[in-house]
């Protein structure tokens, strides 16, 4: 049985992001190695939905994921915090 955590990845549309959202997701992948797998947010059986928002407005539509655990990041700082949490360092 795989220990890989499935994370549903949902981006905002990126009209004027304050940081590089795609680069940050790459960084999470690199830091967490094979322990996580990003999948479509619509896929069943995800551990949680990671909503990557380009700014604090956080305008991505999360209605389709109602009832699921959603983790929102809006900055590079949020990303670093998430990486630590997923590594169990917090």
């Amino acid at each position: 049985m795989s220990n890989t955590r499935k994370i549903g990845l949902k981006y905002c549309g990126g009209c004027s992001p304050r940081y590089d959202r795609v680069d940050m997701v790459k960084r999470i992948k690199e830091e967490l190695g094979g322990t996580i797998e990003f999948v479509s947010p619509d896929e069943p059986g995800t551990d949680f939905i990671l909503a990557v928002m380009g700014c604090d407005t956080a305008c991505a539509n999360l209605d389709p994921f109602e009832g699921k655990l959603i983790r929102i990041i809006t900055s590079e700082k949020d990303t670093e915090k998430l990486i630590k949490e997923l590594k169990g360092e917090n």
Partner: protein
Amino acid sequence: MPLMNAQQYEESLRKLNLKVYMFGKRVENVVDDPIIRPSMNAVAATYEFAHYPEYEDLLTTTSHITGKKINRFCHIHQSTEDLVKKTKMGRLMGSLTGCCFQRCVGMDAMNALSMTTYDIDQKYGTQYNKRFLKYLEYVQENDLTCDGAMTDPKGDRSKAPHQQADPDMFMRVVEERPDGIVVRGAKCHQTGAVNSHEIIIMPTISMREEDKDYAISFALPSDAEGITYIMGRQSCDTRKLEKGTMDRGNQIYGGHEALVVFDDVFVPWERVFMYKEWDFAGQLVEQFASYHRQSYACKAGVGDVLIGATQIIAEYNGANKASHVKDKIIEMNHLNETLFCGSVACAAEGHKEPSGTYLVNTLLANVCKQNVTRFPYEIARLAQDIAGGLMVTLPSEEDFRSPEVGKWVEKYYKANADVPTEYRMRMLRLIENITLGTAAVGYLTESMHGAGSPQAQRIMIARQVNMNAKKKVAKKLSGIPEDE
């Protein structure tokens, strides 16, 4: 196919049989023509990026008529959130392409028609809205690009359509048949016309009863019999025919406009959305114009590219640490974000019309567009200021590649030692492209005149502000009786 990708879009265009003329000759292969191709790439980007996870939240949505996932450019706004996302989509696409991506005008035409057809039906008991919704479903199901065509040639500006010496200066009906109508006229400045599957015609001004033959709205396939496209020239357009690509500036994308002539074209009744209801011509014009004035959030996206290019050339020139250069770039950003503010504001302050469609705040949409008629010019001026005169005196790519003189171009146009001369030349060409080359059509003159020239917005602003309320409070605070 509710969501095409770029390749499918391109294939769909190849099936069209458009009658396109450029430089006096018929264009046999429109899709692959080197002058037109970059503009096709820009529309194709609206299809391709809809499939990217990092953009799909703006570029896709759910159809209110079928419940299916569709491209937002085919959507009828169902909330103020939809309107705000439309603004953001415009900025996003401008920032990804650095030019006009041409697809907003059809979206704006369809949204305006969703309201006007409903309102005509309420007054006259007609069936336009039902027809329109059937047409909309066809557009959404096939993920079509529509050219929203409003601007007539207009002839003598002091005369109404029926008073013109040449009656074809405004699109008009010339024959009524049991199965439809025959129309004649032309539409000018049609952005993205030859990249479109459909053309949606609207009247260009408010009309009186004498002009009722001109009060028509309809949609046709872009290759319908009798439609001819004559491509507009753009500054530096033939650089796209040259051997190298560096002097184009933008290596991938572009825009285009065309004069579209309707030479006695048949329109079946099921494609007619307004027929002689002259008293609704003005409403359709105003609602379309308001949406389209909001759409100019795209210029903030193009501004993002220009600001980025300006920062880079400052660095390549070794001037980026100068305080006045830093300050000018701050000013560029300030102006650019102010453009975005206006579009976001008119969207956030939108409201629901009787048809159910959400319309922008029309006062703020006009304020937004009025800013767009000015700020890109100032942003462009600052970009040219920072770039330096080399932007317009730079030798060609062929000189740069020349075995005889290339070494001198390389030597004497080197600035920052860490930056290849070619990179410096490329960035200067991009700034040139946006501020006075092919893309300046969209970034500057279209900002001035597209969606209505500056005076059109000033008239709307004057009409919509509540001047009495302003006077009343001024009198109260200064101690003057209200009735004085």
